[in-house]
């Protein structure tokens, strides 16, 4: 017989591991001490680079060391700014760190720093690097971020990038990063024909809706596709705009579609071409949808309101409503108005959903998709039906009971708000006994003198910001 095989016992192995750990900790302490003493004596040179490299290659998440490394490289290259050797070597070094930890903030950031500071950055090489890392892990959002950054520098066309994105989605559609990138590229590649507020053309939209419903049907539990669908259907955050305006003797009120900070966001409000900065947020917070300007104002026949924000101008004409108020209001955009082709696609999708509901009448994702599709087709026509679906969802998906009730509240309010704005009668809005849980669009309601919210037992009163406005009588 040959020699016997000796294998470490588990106790011996544990002892070895412990020793290794202790030694590592020790090495780390020694290294850190040396690094700090070198730095305080301003000995910026290869020794400092080597020491930080040793520790970073084991743990690339130490941002202090990356900072010291940057400081060191800058000092070392002060003499000869044209020499890229040191930068190139450090690019290689970050790659080693990324092999160890592909999601290291420090290493990715250091890489972009090198390229920004190197005399000869090779951006194309960086694009290829991203390709490689996204092949290893297509959901590495660090790399997606980095990719968007280098692609701009390397002047890669949006077409190429879209192709890349599309390939990644086909391989695995559970990929927020790639869907998001897609939503950024499409408006460049396929802008809407006429309407600037719409991100992508009708034709492309139709295709995108097809892809996204396919993903959603393939795996409804994957939420990334849903987010993209909401985006396509225009359910994402509202765009900034003026919502409404009301002037009475004691104050002016202006409301926006979304909360803004007038100071920080550099928003100017011109009332008949006069810019006044006496606006205060109704809640007293820095950011708000509703702003008030107290004073002593005159009731005129017509007031032109202009708002400038991010190089865009928004306007609204308010008209004298009665002897005590001047009021202007825009009907909010609840979603996009689609063309015939897209509507056709939406109808097909709705049909597929209904077909599926025959097999699976309780499928929550199908119920919700069907409801959303109906609303995109014609929210007012299908109003009652969509509310029925939400009711059903409350029973088949009790975990999201609250969410469905909130959603129902929102949809009900859309109908009520439309009636209210279109009626032109702003004294009072009747919202009694609607089973509301929360009041959406409440900035649009500030123009009313009276808001009747009685018999809504589940209503969260904190959601009613308009109750802060003087002269707006709210009954719960």
């Amino acid at each position, binding site marked *: 017989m040959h020699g016997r*095989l000796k294998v470490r016992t588990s106790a011996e192995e544990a002892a070895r591991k412990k020793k290794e750990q202790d*030694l590592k900790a020790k090495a780390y302490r020694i290294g850190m001490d040396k690094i700090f003493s070198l730095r305080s004596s301003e000995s910026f040179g290869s020794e400092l680079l080597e020491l930080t490299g040793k520790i970073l290659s084991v743990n690339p998440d130490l941002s202090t060391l990356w900072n010291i490394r940057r400081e060191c490289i800058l000092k070392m290259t002060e003499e000869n700014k044209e020499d890229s050797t040191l930068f190139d070597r450090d690019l290689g070094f970050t790659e080693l760190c990324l092999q160890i930890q592909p999601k290291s903030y420090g290493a990715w950031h250091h890489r972009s720093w090198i390229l920004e500071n190197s005399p000869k950055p090779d951006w194309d090489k960086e694009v290829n690097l991203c390709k490689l890392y996204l092949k290893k892990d297509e959901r590495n959002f660090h790399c997606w971020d980095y990719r968007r950054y280098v692609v701009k520098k390397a002047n890669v066309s949006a077409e190429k990038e879209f192709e890349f994105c599309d390939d990644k989605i086909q391989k695995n559609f559970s990929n927020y990063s790639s869907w998001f990138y897609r939503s950024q590229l499409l408006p460049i590649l396929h802008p809407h024909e006429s309407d600037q507020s719409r991100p992508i053309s009708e034709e492309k939209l139709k295709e995108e809706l097809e892809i996204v419903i396919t993903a959603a049907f393939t*795996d409804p539990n994957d939420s990334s596709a849903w987010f993209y669908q909401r985006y396509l259907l225009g359910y994402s955050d509202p765009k900034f705009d003026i919502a409404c305006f009301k002037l009475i003797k004691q104050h002016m009120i202006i409301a926006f579609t979304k909360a803004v900070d007038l100071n920080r966001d550099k928003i100017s409000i011109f009332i008949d071409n006069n810019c006044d900065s006496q606006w205060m947020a109704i809640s007293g917070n820095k950011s708000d949808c509703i702003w008030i300007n107290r004073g002593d104002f005159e009731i005129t026949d017509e007031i032109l309101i202009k708002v400038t924000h991010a190089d865009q101008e928004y306007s609204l004409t308010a008209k004298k409503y009665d002897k005590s108020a001047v009021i202007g209001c825009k009907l909010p955009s609840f979603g996009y108005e689609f063309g015939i082709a897209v509507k056709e696609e939406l109808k097909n999708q709705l049909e597929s959903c209904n077909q599926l509901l025959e097999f699976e009448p309780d499928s929550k994702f199908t119920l919700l998709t069907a409801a959303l599709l109906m609303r995109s087709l014609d929210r007012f026509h299908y109003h009652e039906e969509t509310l029925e679906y939400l009711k059903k969802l409350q029973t088949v998906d009790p975990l999201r009971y609250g969410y469905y009730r909130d959603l129902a509240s929102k949809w009900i309010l859309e109908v009520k708000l439309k009636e209210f704005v279109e009626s032109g009668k702003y004294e009072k809005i009747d919202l009694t006994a609607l089973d509301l849980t929360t009041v959406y669009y409440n900035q649009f309601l500030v123009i009313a003198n009276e808001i009747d919210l009685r018999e809504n037992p589940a209503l969260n009163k904190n959601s009613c910001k308009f109750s802060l406005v003087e002269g707006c009588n709210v009954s719960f």
Partner: protein
Amino acid sequence: MNDLPKEFDLCVIGTGFQESVIAAAASRVGKSVLHIDQNEFYGGFWSSYNLENFMNHLEVNKAEETDKMCKIRNVNQQWYEFTDEIPEINEWNKEKIIKDSRRFNIDLIPKLNYCNGKLVDLLISSNICRYTEFRAVDKVLTARNGQLDIVPGSRADIFTKKNVSIVEKRLLMKFITQCVEYKADDEKKEETFDFPDDGKFIDLMRQQKLTDNLIHYILYSMCMGNDETTFKEGLDKIRMYLTSIGRYGNTPYLFPMFGCGEIPQCFCRLCAVFGGIYWLGQHVSDVNIIDSDNDEKVVKMKFGDEFITSKKLVCGLDSNLLDINAYPTSHISRAVFITTKPVGGSSVNSELDGGGVVLLYHPIEGSSDGVTMIQLSHFTSCISKGLYLVHLSTPFKKGAQNDLKDFVNTFFREDYSSDDDTKPTVIYSAYFEVPSSIKGHNYVDSQNGPIFYCCGSFAELDYDESIRQSRLLYSKMYPDDDFLPKAPEPEEIIIGDEDETNSSVNLGALADLVIENDKSGDNEGQETVNDDIKAENEHPVDENKDTESTNDIEKA
């Protein structure tokens, strides 16, 4: 043979799959093993051959054709007849192909493995996995009315599949998810299936409103089943399929690089690593069971000019010591083709190189069996670049050519037409029948040693039944010993007189820090660390004590 020991715990004759597994398992737990094969190569029926050896091997068997069950039989080899008008097809002809003979690894018994199947599990649990490499099967095909189609197996496939409507996608995903989540004793059956185990799988799918399109993919391809497949069988298959997919590739299957002949060799290597002795091209004769000194039955046999004894003897299917009559055997009908194009042409091969490994299972009308096709390209290192190696297998019924005729006519052609994109021309064909064992038969219970007999291959896609039988046989032979426990990692092994805890401390890049610090000597109490680092794995250490001591001895 003078230095060969005369006594062994185990002698194994034949290096087929089961023989090699038994040899490895015995050696692993410390038995002394002599492993021999009458051939000059490893694997027996489980071997991979280069083209010339393959052709010769078949011819030899043809010449020797007898009634003996455990032989390859009914061999028929043919080459496409190249003429002056058609001297070559896609730049290949017989001469060119034979010249490339060494690039071929042709299996008599080609097999695939589920990524989550028994072989992969065994390779991992025994640590034999480090000896072998696989390629994930690139595509799984199915055929309807002679039209080939790619089976959407993974989520990504289902997402991008064109001829499956979105409603079907939902139904398919839901069904396969339920299959994976199904537990037989689940209280809440209404959430999955409430269906009898022996009910027909197809009826369950209809009950679940799956379309014919989906039933085809699931039943005839993923499950490799038929209309008689029971719920339980179907469920087991689909679960294996689904738990395997995505583990290593986009399909559930793996094929060994360089052919399946590698697999037994991996087990042999483990046997050798633990001290097993290998000797190819050897026979034993005069085999007798005798009583040993301590009244145990042992096997005495003549090996070369000498007698050796072994406490146990294991014989493979191709060993002439096997008692065929006591050992029910059947056959598998096989065909091996060489073509210059992948099956299906551009309709299923977007990249036009046919990918690496393609699987096509095709049920035979009016039979519970089907034909399995495994098509290999050069990516498996089994054939030259530009050629395709096609393996067809089906359980023997009337004869290889007869059993495979319909399949071949549907997907291949024997003549050449430059217009036909979908049916590749067969340039070389070999039909034959290899012996196999019968699945489900109990081969172990009747065996009481000290001579044991191994099974051959089974008519299955993978090695699962072979592994099951190997475990049974091993536990009969060595009821008290573990079956292939994990072999230690290199770093866990203590070599020579290593100090046990100080060795193999691996600090990677940090090591220098400690060493440099110690060299500078401005710290107290560094002695121990210094020693530790000397033994550190990353750096061969120069001032080695062993070297010193051996040199001291020399000087003395």
